[in-house]
């Protein structure tokens, strides 16, 4: 498949919600290690908002914008702003009802750009950025033409990035104050965002 239609994109969101819901407790428990134990609840709430809003979407820009605002109406802590910013950033770039592979890459880049306006966290800081940045970079750098293949490369990078957070010391978020004690657990946000990128690839 070379083009991303709006219907396929909606399927990607649906799949992400299903997969994230299945692992909700795991994400909350990761957050409970060094945070307040609610990341599972938060990411499920945020993704539920995406699919609810997406149902009425007819073209990318408006739908992504509405999804972004929909997420930000959720009371889901850090997650609502970060995921909301991601969708708003995608909306800044995407147009129409069907995206070429290049358009899709640009859309994800736009998402990352806007998340970066919300947080200075970089790779190595033990946050969701450890999944998001490698994922978007892999997507941008992919030489494949099949969108499933491109997204699969993104997913692989996201999962590797999330795995790497286990040995990191947290520099952002509630885990920051734990210092060395934050080692030994995967970051909850990196775990859930990598799960989401994996679902995107699997949904196609």
């Amino acid at each position, binding site marked *: 498949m070379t083009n991303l239609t709006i219907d396929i994109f909606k399927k990607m969101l649906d799949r992400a919600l299903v997969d994230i819901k299945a692992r909700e*407790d795991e994400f*909350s*428990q990761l957050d*409970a290690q*060094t*945070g*307040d*134990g*609610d990341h*599972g*609840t*938060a990411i499920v709430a945020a993704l539920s908002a995406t699919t609810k809003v997406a149902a009425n979407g007819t073209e990318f820009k408006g739908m992504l914008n509405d999804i972004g*605002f929909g*997420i*930000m*109406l*959720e*009371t*889901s*802590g*850090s*997650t*609502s*702003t*970060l995921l*909301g*910013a991601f969708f708003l950033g995608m909306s800044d770039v995407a147009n129409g009802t069907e995206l070429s592979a290049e358009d899709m890459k640009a859309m994800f880049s736009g998402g990352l750009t806007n998340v970066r306006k*919300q*947080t200075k966290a970089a790779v190595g800081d033990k946050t969701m950025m450890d999944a998001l940045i490698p994922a978007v970079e892999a997507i941008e750098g992919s030489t494949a033409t099949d969108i499933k293949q491109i997204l699969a490369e993104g997913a692989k990078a996201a999962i590797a990035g999330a795995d790497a957070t286990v040995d990191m010391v947290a520099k*952002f*978020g*509630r*885990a*920051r*104050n*734990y*210092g060395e*004690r934050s080692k030994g657990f995967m970051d909850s946000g990196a775990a859930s965002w990598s799960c989401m990128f994996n679902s995107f690839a699997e949904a196609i």
Partner: protein
Amino acid sequence: MSTVKTKFINNPENVTAELLEGYVLAYPDQVKLGAENIVVRAHAKSEDKVAVITLGGSGHEPALSGFVGEGMLDASVVGDIFAAPGAQRVFQALQMFKRDAGILLVVLNHSGDVMSANMACQMAERAGIKVKQILTYDDISAGIDTPKEDRRGLAGCVPMIKILGAAAEEGKSIDELIEIGERLNPKIATLAVAMKYCIHPQNGAMITDLPEGIMEIGMGQHGEGGGGRQPLVSADETAAQMVDLLCRQMKPQAGDDMMLIVNGVGATTHMELSIVFRKAYKELEARGLKVVSGRIQEILTVQEQAGFQMILAGLDADHLAYLNKKSDAPYWTTIGK
């Protein structure tokens, strides 16, 4: 019936909505719901004065909505349990209080709150709403002289809000308010200690499982830790340790006027809080410091966790005067002098 078997609640998903509804029904002369999850005064302040607004997750009652009222907050934007409200909700509150005098948004330094506030302010800017932020970062558990980005916002936001609220009521401009607040910020410091877990009312998770006889100084206020665990010592030793750490950060001079608050976070009794206050007071006295403003109260809780926060501040004369000004906020009522 919820799966959480240790609390008087209904459907866990509704705790925030139901607690806010109960709260405004109890204090209708002071507060009401301006919109979903937005608590406002029952009698609005005149529009020529700066509006003071804050935001934050629920589960910390009476904070932060308990401080809406004449002389304190104009509004509080409420998230779900321990979760920042989304930026959209904050923006909605900013729209409600749009005014030429401007809006001062008091933000506690937590990722979620900061990001919600930042994005809401970006949205407000585009909508021509005049809003400025003041960040509170009173937690010193990350170490003495840690840069403020690495210091969390704990219950020190509450006296900050009292002072800013009184100054706004008096008609101070938004820039004057920021000057008053930023002058207080480096002079206020907080440490939290806990010795028992609490239960998250929605997911039933046990937060901070501290074994009996162990305490941790340097807690956050959502169960997250950050200090070091140590065997439980006496109230006096605990208080002395905390005063010492706080003074090392603040470096007050003999003769300084101080504010001392001992804030219970849940299961720790007023009896214990008073015993801790006594020792902290004496420790300050021994350093030649003068406690001119005191308080023993649950102002910001962490569910039924056992523990407390000790908040210390050096006060300038105007800060003290604002603390003493009238307020009818339900959980910080001051007759005024």
